[in-house]
């Protein structure tokens, strides 16, 4: 996703009452995170599970929160998602950068990238892909879900190699 839209995605959530953005940096989400840092709304955790813990605390304090992370870190967090987020019905929006979407991405991302759609499916975590055309509609969808206490994931594909 290009720089302009990533910045717009951040501003969209910022304007629509997402008060906190907690996560672990990912190059696929670089401009989204940069926009958040400029607005001083970003909290960087050491690990994705830690980010989910902090964000859960913020949500328990009635302050809505988005978690951003790479799909590798999302996979690290599966047990936390099942035994905290889904068990207690914590309304979190996960924003996940999808490494390994392209077949010739770096080798460490290949396997986890391949099983990413299955991970979401097996978790029963409702999700949508964000792209240049549909991002606003799908961000709106995510906001409507968390109002109903349903955690969801938004995925941004890594469509370039470096």
């Amino acid at each position: 996703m290009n720089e302009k839209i990533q910045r717009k995605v951040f501003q969209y959530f910022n304007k629509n009452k997402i008060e906190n953005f907690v996560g672990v940096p990912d190059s696929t989400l670089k401009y989204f995170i940069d926009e958040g840092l400029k607005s001083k709304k970003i909290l960087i955790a050491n690990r994705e599970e830690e980010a989910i813990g902090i964000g859960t605390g913020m949500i328990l304090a009635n302050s809505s929160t988005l978690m951003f992370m790479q799909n590798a870190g999302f996979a690290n967090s599966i047990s936390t998602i099942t035994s905290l987020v889904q068990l207690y019905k914590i309304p979190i929006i996960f924003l996940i950068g999808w490494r390994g979407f392209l077949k010739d991405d770096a080798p460490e991302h290949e396997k986890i990238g391949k099983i990413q759609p299955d991970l979401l499916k097996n978790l029963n975590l409702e999700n949508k892909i964000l792209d240049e055309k549909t991002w606003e509609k799908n961000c709106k969808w995510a906001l409507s879900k968390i109002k109903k206490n349903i955690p969801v994931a938004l995925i941004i594909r890594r469509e370039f190699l470096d």
Partner: protein
Amino acid sequence: MIRRDAIEIVCQYVKKDIIISANGFISRDLFSSFEKNTNFYMIGSMGLASSIGLGIALKKPKKRIFVFDGDGNILMNLGSLVTIGSLRPKNLVHLIFDNNIHESTGGQPTHSKEINISKIAKASNYTVFSVKTKKTLEKTLREIPNIHGPIFIHIHLSQGAKKSSRVVISPVSIKNRFMNAIN
């Protein structure tokens, strides 16, 4: 002093304040000795009680937050000490009930006997208290209302437990009543 005794002493000082309790026997002991709707019993997600406590502390700066953590739990999320120490929430009191074992899973050793967790907390900007007796625990609890957090109370325990019951409230009910009580 065994864990249940220490938890009962701390609860006398906590009163209505918020408690986030780690999974396993710590949550069971709290549930059995001081059940209230401002307790968040974290029954899964081992390691994350301090992170959940941090999130609440940042958003509720006028409320005092107690985290009931274990040695096994904090060792699973040591990076949490660094994050908490960087953000320095004044209202966070982080207690480690340290019996040097994973008691909930059958008493296997943790590494807390070899490495002093208090020193890591001190290096992470906490104000640290290390206590071994009921008397020093009570003295510490009387002192902390006048001290800015983050505060770390490392409670060295002897092993052995009173039987505490499982948390029987559903997770969604734990969340809902907790949110109603604190917001």
